[in-house]
């Protein structure tokens, strides 16, 4: 799976290798889409090494790390850290470095969702909302039985 980052083109950058980031990486890996993970946590770096995924050790908020991940040639970036502020800063930095990049991110707060979109995100996911929708679907499904 490891590739020289400068050779990567139309790849996906994943910022944060938490539960969300790991799930995205699994899906992309399964469908053989190239990606790079930017992660700062040492334990998660060990995990990335174990999976043999492309990664950059450092903060996704730093433009240097995004440039190292060859953001200019990337097709999309998933900003999925468990910190609203970090996500917002990374979205702004990413958009600044590549205006055409597709930015997907997560937030827990509906009020922040609009701000992130204004900052340049193309797709914002709210884990709590997806989960509640899933539960309601389950309840409604059982009710109609």
């Amino acid at each position, binding site marked *: 799976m490891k590739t020289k980052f400068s050779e990567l083109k*139309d790849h996906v950058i994943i910022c944060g290798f938490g539960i969300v980031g790991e799930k995205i990486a699994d*899906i992309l890996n399964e*469908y053989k889409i190239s990606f790079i993970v930017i992660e700062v946590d040492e334990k998660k770096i060990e995990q990335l090494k174990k999976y043999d995924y492309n990664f950059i050790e450092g903060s996704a908020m730093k433009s240097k790390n995004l440039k190292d991940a060859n953001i200019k040639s990337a097709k999309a970036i998933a900003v999925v850290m468990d910190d609203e502020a970090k996500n917002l800063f990374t979205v702004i930095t990413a958009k600044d470095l590549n205006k055409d990049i597709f930015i997907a991110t997560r937030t827990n707060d509906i009020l922040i969702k609009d701000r992130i979109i204004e900052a340049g995100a193309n797709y914002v996911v709210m884990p709590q909302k997806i989960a509640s929708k899933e539960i309601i679907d389950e309840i409604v499904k059982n009710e109609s039985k």
Partner: protein
Amino acid sequence: MVKVDLVSAQNASIEMLLLFTLISIFIFLFSFHELTAIDHNAYASGYLILTAMFDAVDTNVGVINITNLLSFNFLVVFTVLIMDGITKVLLIGFVMASFIEVFTSIDIKARLQVHDIKKLKNHVIICGYSMFSEQLTAELIQKKIKFVIIDKDIIKTEMLKDMKYFSIAGNFLSEEILMDAGILNAKYIIFGVKSDYSNLLGVITAKKINKNINIISRAMDDAAVRYLNDITPGKYFIPEYLAGNEIGYTLLELENINNINSNTSK
């Protein structure tokens, strides 16, 4: 919770004492006005009202001795009566405060709500009010499904009561609280806190009380889902996992759209 109840009881006592003081001032001013209107001078009017208010009427320093106001005997008896009056006021205040404290600790509003909750059938119990539960309640309202929220934080439950939601302040691991939430008649119980341990204990407690209840619980990772499934089958979910799926497949779709576009342009 007890701490908050005591605080509210104290606040209520202070309010009642203030009200009592205001009523006393009002009575004093009103009586003063009335007495001065019927030919009593201001000094005599003040004296008459004070003695009346401190229960000095019909004593030997009453209206009869009003002419000997500056005698030593009068001053002694008057001081004793004032002290007697103050003691009575303090005693009344203390009794009233104690009464209010007991009255508020019963929390009639909450008791009445519990009575209404116990009438519910096939409802949903939500354990823990978080951002996730907030989303969930919005969806439940839309679908017109009745629900009861249990949360430890009394400020949250009071806020929910103001929003006309059924809510109970307390620990959802307590059987008594779950009974108050009408677990015996509930169809679903949802554990949404960010603690696998609490959710796990909640699932065990709920299943112990009502074997037929449908369990839905949040989990933080796959291991927790396995543990929960070992206890009882239910719907267990990791919100972040679902979010990862959503983003992952959106990116795949993006890739597919681009591939279609590049193939058609060739």
